């Protein structure tokens, strides 16, 4: 066991975990933040995506030790108090979320995409979300959600 210092959604945690434990499992079992989902466990589906020091990563492929000292943002840190983040609101209003398993990863991948490209082309949206699999929506509603979120954020860039 090693003690990991993590700042998750603005809150500091000191967690005793095996250094090779997957960050995904640290978040769910040790930090009790179960919003991050496990899909494939092989880095192919993006359900476990989180922001690690601002970079989108698949938390199933990050050993705990490599996150020591890092700042993390999970789906629990995206909303502001009782108010959904504009990205979440747009997914909700456009049918971008159905069963919900892919949604936390989709929202964080969208967050990362819109940080890089505030007004993304459809090509950039498709590439930015290519690592996030959804078996419900057929993706079109997700792409529309992202486009609307980009618009909403351009009107109110610092929600």
């Amino acid at each position, binding site marked *: 066991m090693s003690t990991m210092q993590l700042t998750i959604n603005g809150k500091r945690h000191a967690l005793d975990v095996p250094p090779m*434990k997957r960050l995904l499992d640290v978040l769910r079992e040790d930090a009790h933040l179960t919003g991050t989902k496990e899909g494939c466990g092989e880095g192919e589906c993006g359900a476990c995506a989180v922001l690690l020091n601002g970079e989108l990563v*698949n938390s199933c492929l990050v050993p705990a030790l490599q996150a020591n000292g890092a700042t993390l943002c999970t789906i629990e840190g995206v909303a502001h108090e009782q108010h959904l983040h504009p990205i979440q609101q747009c997914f909700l209003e456009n049918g971008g979320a159905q069963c919900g398993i892919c949604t936390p990863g989709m929202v964080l*991948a969208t967050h990362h995409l819109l940080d890089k490209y505030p007004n993304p082309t459809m090509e950039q949206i498709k*590439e930015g979300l290519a690592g996030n699999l959804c078996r419900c929506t057929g993706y079109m509603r997700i792409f529309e959600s992202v486009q609307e979120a980009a618009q909403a954020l351009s009107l109110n860039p610092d929600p």
Partner: protein
Amino acid sequence: MRSDVTQYELTAPATLAAVLAQLAAEPGKHTPIAGGTELMVALGVGRLGAKSLLSINHLRELRFIRVDDDAIHIGAGTTFSDIRRNADIARDLPLLVQSASWTGSVANQNRGTLGGNICNASPAADTPPALLAYGATVTLISATGMRTMPYTEFHLGYKRTALRPDELLHTITVPRVFAGWKQHIRKVGTRNAQAISKTALACVAKLHGETITELRIGAASLADRPIRCYATEAALTGASLAASDLESTVRAGRAALAQEAKPIDDIRSTGRYRSIVAANLLEEFLRSLAG
């Protein structure tokens, strides 16, 4: 079956020198882990044999892109996202940028490293064909010093490389000599993002009028390791792309590549399919040169 993570050791020595000292003190005991996009998958499905791992992900000494007059030097710890963001690489080495964009999704490109892609030594890896076509050299480092070799000498067989147990890949160097060359890369997989190649071909050629004066071809999954296709290059050097000669040049190229390719059958494709598709990719390149 998922692995029992308590059975694994992982430490993160603070410096490159400390990592190399540990590799030298107990050769073969420790496995380096960088972005984890390969080894963590193995861990997840219970196939990670190495029990003691050394993290090299945090080593700034391995994460750099340095450009001088003659070459671009890329640290082994450089991520695919770093490569895609670099203006010098975009200008001089478009085939490397293209292959980096195929290597998994954005989340995996933020973690996966060029050195990891090379040292994992899959015959299907995305970046080796471009690096082989570009005539890259690799520099290896150990506690006792550095050595540099042509990248063509690095892959020795299926998942076997020239790395000694006490060594790490340090730098990949690509000469800046391709201004004016024709450059082409194409991957055939189930889809470009995420899916691993069935085969891929990277080609660079220098033309004089309608004659190919120099040609280099790097290939994925046409052997048990990433390869340069020397025989095919030789068969096409000096060949004419003039309208009256193009069909015979294409035929000669296809025949040479079919002769040279020794692809394996595996879960993703058959050797026969890979040979035919690779010949199609070569033909596409030759016709684009003529066009």
